[in-house]
């Protein structure tokens, strides 16, 4: 559990695997979907390597769900093509795909284990196998006590977990989870993160959509960022972070403006919001280039005799990337 949380994207299994195999389990070529005048998805191309954990990020209404539905061939693209596990339609390989839709729902009157068994059987598992697998999963993810309960008696979070389990019980090669974290409490979010990393370790490819960046940051090797149906970014998390400048935070009573003589310091700005009002200390924010080692700044400070009460170098988070890249779109959507 702790492993996955501190795991940096660079040593996630997906990353290493991506370098060894360029085998792609899913690729979209110029896929678009229009409904009359409205374009829900506009010319998206991407390729997802086997064994990776791939995040679909974007604000509400960006087209994540539509893209997923087209991948699954639940709806047909208006143009473009999809190749999934070597086939042109997900229906041909549907037993190798696991899918959790965005809007969650289950048969309310069924028993939990029977429900997981049923969905696994729909994916081609034998009855007995499916039953064993259902009980195994329920035990592993802490739901054994509810196995005999009816779905309608479960809490929202629990039934969502059950739904995730029913989507992956047949151990599919490709797992597609649409907003799997929404509605889960932090503990169960971690359980779900574990499940996802377990699957990736197992060689399964996981695609999930979310608008909560922390999950993507902790889990994903690759991300796709879409807004208003367009692809904004597609690549590794590190590549995504490189799209915005790195920053160094300083706190000092002295004037730090002389630091701009260092090669690689792009901009120095006062961060007045963070000022501690009853002291003379001031907060500064330095934007630095990709190449600059933050240690050089520290060294300069000693040289220039700037006394620091705080020195902080933070990698930009995906959240920053997200806001940077789609901030305006997201806001616009929020008011629609």
């Amino acid at each position, binding site marked *: 559990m702790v492993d996955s949380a501190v795991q940096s994207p660079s040593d996630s299994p997906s990353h290493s695997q991506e370098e060894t195999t360029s085998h792609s389990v899913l690729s979209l070529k110029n896929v678009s979907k229009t409904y009359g005048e409205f374009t829900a998805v506009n010319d998206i191309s991407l390729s997802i390597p086997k064994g990776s954990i791939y995040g679909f990020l974007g604000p509400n209404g960006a087209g994540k769900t539509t893209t997923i*539905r087209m991948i*699954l061939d*639940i*709806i047909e693209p208006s143009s473009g093509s999809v190749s999934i596990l070597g086939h042109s339609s*997900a*229906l041909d390989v*549907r037993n190798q*795909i696991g*899918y*959790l*839709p*965005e*809007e*969650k*729902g*289950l*048969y*309310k*009157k*069924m028993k939990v284990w029977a429900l997981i068994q*049923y*969905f696994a*059987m*729909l*994916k081609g598992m034998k009855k007995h196998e499916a039953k064993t697998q259902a009980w195994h999963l329920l035990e592993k993810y802490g739901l054994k006590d509810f196995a005999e309960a009816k779905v309608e008696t479960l809490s929202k979070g629990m039934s969502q977990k059950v739904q995730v389990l*029913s*989507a992956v019980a047949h151990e599919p090669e490709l797992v597609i989870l649409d907003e799997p974290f929404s509605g889960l409490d932090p503990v169960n979010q971690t359980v779900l993160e574990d499940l996802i990393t377990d699957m990736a370790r197992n060689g399964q490819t996981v695609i999930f959509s979310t608008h909560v960046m922390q999950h993507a940051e902790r889990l994903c090797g690759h991300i796709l960022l879409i807004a208003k149906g367009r692809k904004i970014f597609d690549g590794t998390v590190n590549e995504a972070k490189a799209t915005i400048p790195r920053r160094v935070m300083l706190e000092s009573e002295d004037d730090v403006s002389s630091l701009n003589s260092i090669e690689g310091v792009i901009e120095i700005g006062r961060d007045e919001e963070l000022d501690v009002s009853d002291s003379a200390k001031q907060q500064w924010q330095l934007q630095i280039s990709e190449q600059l080692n933050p240690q050089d700044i520290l060294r300069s400070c000693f040289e220039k005799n700037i006394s620091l009460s705080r020195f902080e170098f933070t990698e930009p988070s995906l959240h920053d990337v997200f806001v940077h890249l789609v901030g305006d779109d997201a806001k616009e959507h929020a008011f629609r």
Partner: protein
Amino acid sequence: MNMIRLIAWREYMENVKTKGFWAGILIFPIIFTVMYFLQTMLSNSTPTRYYIFIDQSGEYGEAVETAIEREHQRRILGEFVSYLMDNRKESNLELSAAAGTNAADQLIDNADADQVAALDEWLESGGLNFALTMASPALKEDRAAFEQPSRQFIAADLPEGIDSSASPEAIAQALRPYLSGERKIVVDSRPGDLFALILIPANVDDDISRPGAMPQSPSGPTGIQYWARNLTDSRLPDAIISSINAEIRNREYIDLGVDNQIVRSVQRTRMPISQLDPTAAIGEEAVSVADTFRQLAPIGFVYLMFISLMQSVQYLLSNTIEEKSNRIIEVLLASVTAGELMMGKLLGIGLSGLTTIAVWLLSFFLFITLYQSSQTELISQILDVILSSELIPWFIFYYFAGYALYSGIFLAIGSLCNTLKEAQAMMMPMIMIQVIPLAMMVFVVRDPHNTIVRAMSWFPLFTPYLMMNRAAADPPLVDLVGTTIVLLLSIVFVLWLSGKVFRMGVLRTGQPPRLTELLRMLRHRN
């Protein structure tokens, strides 16, 4: 195919496991049983009714008393007949219809012309005791003794302080509080409700109407006055009026010098009628009661088909809507094709429908085996006749055809709606269409080759109902083959079309589309 079976099995099991399903199934036999026993109980539990009889003319006292005695004897006779039916040693339904109808006709004739005489005959020949002695050789040895029904109409005395020789208006006025239930009369020093007042005014003979006389515009009540709050229990006034009329006619005969015994025998002279079936083998043309039932049986089948189809499509609809509103449909469609999903649902729900019919028939059989009486014996014999007839294969064929046709349509409706409320609005026209052949069923049995009926049979939505309805009457081969072809083609078309609607509809959200929208969507999908 595996997936279809799996989906069908789940639909079936989930359906069968719900309480609602069993409630829906069991309500029918329960209501049937309750109705059956309630009817018997109610007819035995009518309370004793007290009446006051005042005859100011002094001429009809005896006639009224006989009328009431006859009414009592009529009840005894009725009970006795069913006692005989319950306890006779052998029963055979395949009586010749001629004998059956003649006997029935005789009774009806007698009752119409001279019910009084029929009852008198029964009384004169010794009444109940005599009948029991006569019948006992034909009855089972271990039978229970016959219980006489209690008297229902009992004469009460006029309450104190009311003068029976007062004017009819005054008497009626004085008795109003008793008749309306405000006051109780005293019978055997116990209080009781006064049911009726029968008042014969002194000059009642002036009101006798004869054929050819000018109808008089009455200024107030004429003839015998019958006062009662209960307007529906007409046994008492009916018995009195027929008794008094018999008495009056009797006097007329005497006045005219006619022997009323001759009149009676003339009135009861009759000609029998034999019903013969030209399609039956020579020597077996006589129409039996069973044949008549066979002809009427399609009504039952049409009704059973309607109820069962309505129940099934209801499940189908609510089920599809549940999956749709829960978005389970999306997971399902990522696992199976829309076609497989649809066929699985149709099969699974169809199976529940068959289960319903099976349970009904079973409980029906249980009822008639466990509770044996004359009526249930009759029912079981009718069932034997029907089950051994050629109607069963017809029913199976039209049931499945009707189910495929209607469920296809209802499934498409379900896939377009998000709530049951929306669906109900769209269902209405489909239900109305089914009500048309249902409303026609009695007529169709009577006139199965009517041109309009024949024409309507070709409309596929009517075909299962109307052709089932006509099944017992050997419809022309043209109708039979033609409508079947049209029906089967329509089923294929409907299932194909609803498959398309289903595929589009299930992923739709929001309001159900208008018809033009739907057509446009269907075109685009091509």
